C-alpha cells in the first residue's frame, strides 16, 4: 500500500507543477485548475497499475488535458465538437507565417504581461502546444501523445501558434514605439 504510493510519488506526483501549469493555462482559473488537477491525479492513481514503465509525464499531461477540455465543454467555453473543426476555421483566418525574421529580437523587449496575455488569447489547441513545447519543453512526439494527434499536426499547430504570437507581440511593441 505504501509501496504503490511511493512509486506514484516518484513517477507521477513529481510532475504536479507541470500538470497544474497546463491546467491553469487551459482553464485560466486557479480554482478550476486545482479541481482539474486533483481529478486527473486521482484518475492517474486508479490507472497507475495499468501504466507500465516509461516517462509518466506525457501520460499524465494527456489525462489533465482531457479533464480540462471536459470542464471547458461543460462551461460552454468550447463547443462539443472536436477542436479540429475549429482548426479549419482558423486556417482561413491566419496566413502561413512569413519567413522567421528579426521579430524574435523584438520579443526580448516584450513585457512578461504582454507575453502572458498573448498566450492566453490563443485558441486552446494552439495555447496547449505553446505551453507544452515552450514552457514544459516536451518533445513533438510527446506532445502528439498528449493531444492524441499525429506529430505533423503538432508541428503545424506550433508554427501557426508562433506566428500568431509574433503578430500580436510585434504589433504590441510597434504600437508602443509609435506612442513614444
Amino acid at each position, binding site marked *: *500500500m505504501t509501496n504503490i*504510493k511511493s512509486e*506514484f510519488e516518484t513517477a507521477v506526483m513529481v510532475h504536479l507543477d507541470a500538470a*497544474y501549469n497546463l491546467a491553469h493555462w487551459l482553464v485560466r482559473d486557479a480554482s478550476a485548475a486545482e479541481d482539474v488537477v486533483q481529478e486527473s*491525479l*486521482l484518475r492517474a*492513481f486508479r490507472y497507475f497499475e495499468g501504466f507500465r514503465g516509461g516517462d509518466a509525464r506525457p501520460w499524465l499531461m494527456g489525462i489533465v488535458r482531457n479533464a480540462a477540455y471536459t470542464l471547458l465543454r461543460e462551461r460552454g467555453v468550447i463547443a462539443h465538437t472536436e477542436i479540429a473543426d475549429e482548426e479549419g476555421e482558423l486556417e482561413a483566418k491566419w496566413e502561413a507565417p512569413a519567413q*522567421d525574421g528579426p521579430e524574435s529580437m523584438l520579443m526580448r523587449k516584450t513585457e512578461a504581461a504582454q507575453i502572458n496575455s498573448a498566450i492566453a488569447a490563443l485558441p486552446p489547441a494552439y495555447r496547449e502546444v505553446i505551453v507544452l513545447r*515552450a514552457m514544459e519543453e516536451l518533445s513533438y512526439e510527446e506532445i502528439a501523445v498528449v493531444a492524441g494527434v499525429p506529430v505533423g499536426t503538432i508541428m503545424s499547430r506550433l508554427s501557426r501558434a*508562433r506566428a500568431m504570437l509574433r503578430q500580436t507581440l510585434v504589433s504590441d511593441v510597434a504600437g508602443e514605439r509609435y506612442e513614444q
Partner: protein
Amino acid sequence: MSNDRNSFDAALRAGATRHKAPPELRARIWRGIDAQLQADAAVSRAHGRSTLTLSWFNFRGLAAGFAMGALCAVLAVTVFQNGLGNERLDEEMVSGHVRALITGHLSDVISTDQHTVKPWFAGKLEFSPPVWNARPQEFPLLGGRVDYIDHRPAAALVYKRKEHFINVFIWPQSGGAVSGAGKPMNGFNTLRWSDGGMQFWAVSDISAEELAKFRDLSLTTKEAGGSGS
C-alpha cells in the same frame, strides 16, 4: 531558422508565467488517494474468501500428480471463468461504484437527456453505448463517465433511485451472454445482463428486487438496443 524558433521559444519561456501548484493541492490529492485505497481495501476484505478458494485449487493442483494437476487446472480455469471470473468483475464493479461515490466523481457529463449523454461518449470509446432514460420519475438518468473495467475502457451510466445511486457499466460482449445477480457485497447488489451485443453490469445499494425492476425497464426500452440515435 531552427535557432530562431528556439530563441523565440526561449523568449516565451522567460516571459510567460509558469503556474505552480499550491501546496495544499498536493495534500488534498494524497487525501483522495488514501480514500481510494481505503475503499479498495474494504471491498477486498469483504471478498477475501474467493481469493482463498482460488489458491486452494492451485495448491491441490501442485500437490497431486501431473494428471491430477491437469484435471485440477481445467477445473480451476472453468470455475474461474464461470464463477470467479464474474465474482472478480463484480468486485471490480462494486469497487468502481464505491470509489466514484467517495471521490464524488460520478459523472463527467451531467445531463438527464440521453441525447446529450450518448454523443458525449463518441470519440472516447471504441463503441457506442446505449443510453436510455425510460422512467425519469423512478430511475432518472444523471449522467455518464468513462471508467476502466476488466482492463479496458467501459461506459458508466449513472441513475438515481430515491437517494441511491445506480452505476451501470457497459462494454461490448466478448464471450457468451451474461445474466444473473452477483452475491451481495458490503451491502451492494450487482446484476448483469446482455443486450444488442453489449453487456451491462449494474451496481447499487438498492434492493435486489428494485435492481431487477431497473433491468427490466432498461431491457424494454428501445434505446437500450444500442443503434438508436
